[in-house]
């Protein structure tokens, strides 16, 4: 199977990319001015105590040595201990990352589930009212800052209308589902706890929409313009001349072609969404990686910063690997 060989080869390419990521992450985070030993020891610690901490954390060694220790820990699944709370970073990631992933995935589903149909509709109803409304909707999305949108959503749907909850992942009275993935909606489904699932879903709607809006708008625009491009192609005339129905022409013949640029944007958006989640989490008090990372940066908690950055990079690289594989299926002109 050529396609399997292609996937394997692409997986191998991921390794040097990740190695590069570790180098970048390590040296850039050490370029942050400040003395971590001093941070750990506190402002009133004696010079001797600071030096002691520096030695015990290995912070007195040259940077390349520190990097090698970091990487050798990494390959054993050890991201080091947080300087701030002294817990293994891996444990922290297990606690906080699933919430961020869940939010990102929910936002992605919204992006695709709403953006693609809207884009198709706008292309088919080009220059009609539907198209104009879609345009207003997406221009608004692209040009609205997330922090403002988040506050407005809270004001309207939580405070004034009271339709949706304003913070957290579950109501206080609701027990979290048993942990498989750490994503409450998914875990609740797996455990068959429908009430918990509904509650978790209820909580994720506002933050997910807030996070997705920009990319939802971008995807709508991309789908619209690529659909309009494809619908003007000769092979669409051929399809019409062959007697195919308009629905099949649009949803099968045109859509499959317009998916190629859409998938590219989707892959790129995913990374952006994960990074952007930090702001959204702050607004909606979503207990994800966002707060953890901001705290880590403030404390110069290098293991924490690097652990988070590595996870985001890993997800990003894997998503784009998936995109490349989907490409190979979508676009027969790609050689693999």
């Amino acid at each position, binding site marked *: 199977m050529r396609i399997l060989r292609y996937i394997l080869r692409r997986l191998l390419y991921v390794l040097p990319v990740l190695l590069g990521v570790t180098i970048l992450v390590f040296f850039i985070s050490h370029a942050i001015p400040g003395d971590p030993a001093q941070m750990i020891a506190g402002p009133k610690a004696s010079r001797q105590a600071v030096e002691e901490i520096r030695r015990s954390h290995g912070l007195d060694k040259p940077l390349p040595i520190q990097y090698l220790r970091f990487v050798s820990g990494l390959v054993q699944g050890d991201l080091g201990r947080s300087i701030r709370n002294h817990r293994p970073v891996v444990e922290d990631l297990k606690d906080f990352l699933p919430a961020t992933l869940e939010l990102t995935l929910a936002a992605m589903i919204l992006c695709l589930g709403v953006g693609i149909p809207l884009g198709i509709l706008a292309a088919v109803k080009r220059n009609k009212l539907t198209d104009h409304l879609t345009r207003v909707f997406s221009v608004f999305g692209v040009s609205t800052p997330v922090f403002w949108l988040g506050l407005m959503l809270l004001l309207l749907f939580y405070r004034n209308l009271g339709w949706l909850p304003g913070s957290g992942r579950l109501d206080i009275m609701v027990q979290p589902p048993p942990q498989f993935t750490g994503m409450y909606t998914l875990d609740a489904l797996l455990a068959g706890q429908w009430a918990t699932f509904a509650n978790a879903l209820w909580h994720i709607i506002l933050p997910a929409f807030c996070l997705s809006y920009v990319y939802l708008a971008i995807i709508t625009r991309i789908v619209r313009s690529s659909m309009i491009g494809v619908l003007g192609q000769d092979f669409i005339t051929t399809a019409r001349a*062959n007697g195919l129905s308009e629905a099949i022409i649009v949803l099968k013949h045109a859509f499959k072609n317009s998916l190629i640029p859409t998938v590219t944007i989707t892959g790129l958006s995913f990374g952006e969404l994960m990074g952007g989640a930090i702001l959204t989490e702050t607004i909606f008090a979503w207990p994800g990686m966002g707060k953890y990372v901001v705290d880590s940066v403030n404390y110069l908690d290098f293991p924490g910063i690097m652990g988070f950055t590595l996870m985001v990079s890993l997800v990003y690289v894997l998503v784009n690997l998936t995109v490349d594989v989907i490409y190979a299926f979508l*676009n027969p002109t790609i050689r693999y």
Partner: protein
Amino acid sequence: MLDYGKTLLSIRDLSVRFATYQGLARVLEKVCLDIKSGEILGLVGETGCGKSVLARSVLRIIPSPPGKIAAGTISYQGEDLLQISETRMRQVRGNRISMIFQEPMSSLNPVFSVGNQMREVIRLHQQVSKKEATRIALDMLRQVQMPDPAAVLGKFPHELSGGMRQRVMIAMELSCGPDLLLADEPTTALDVTVQGQVLAILRRLAGEKGVSVLFITHDMGVVAQICDRVAVMYAGQMVEVAEVKELFSAPAHPYTRGLISAIPGAEGEKGAEHLYSIPGVVPGLIDPPEGCRYHPRCEKKRAVCTEQTPVMVKLHADHDVACHCCGPSREEGRP
């Protein structure tokens, strides 16, 4: 017009308008044309004279907006194709009347395999299993002399050459056994040698299957090679329809004469260095000349030409012309 032979498709007074930023373009003006069973009818004229629009109007696939069929009838098997429902029309398209296009490079969908696209059309119009559809597709590819048809079914358009793609198009469009094939400059984008092959295949298959072909081209050489009759269009109007030998030996309309004179070498060895060209340019279709649209370029222009639109009249059995100056009463139409 022609009263002998069975008429398959009859276009009467077809007028098509296109809304443009400059104004309403009168792209087709009261065009009449009959296509007979089993014949290859050439449709010639300069770029922009409305040949493609005429063919697309038959299938009702002109882009709308901006295009609009304003008036006329297209009768086919007792039905007016311009009046039937869209659903009924879809049963005609690709099934009873099918069409191949100029650009083989872009006429096939790049993301579906050849087999996939052929089977889709076959199963759309015929109640057959997937396996049977594959068999029909294979058979059609063999008939267009495709080397290794089984492999071609699994290939994507970008893996085929222009000539092969056009053969796939011919195979696909003939797979439902249509009565009429509209061929819109199917060989214009191909190399001359490949052009010859494709023409030969098209003519042979049309003959074997008794399919009528409306063959649009601006290449008079191709017309002479494969057509039975020729229709000549100028600026959205039909100017002359004749049997092919008759048209070349005794063109009646001044425009047709100009076209034939413009063929390199047609004037004999002496004329080879001075290629004839018709003076003037094609008029715009938004505000076309009154009367006969050819009159500003015509050598024989008379007063009536600028006032009245000439109607098609019969010169004799197989020759019609729309011209005030070369009607049946005059001698100049005949050699």
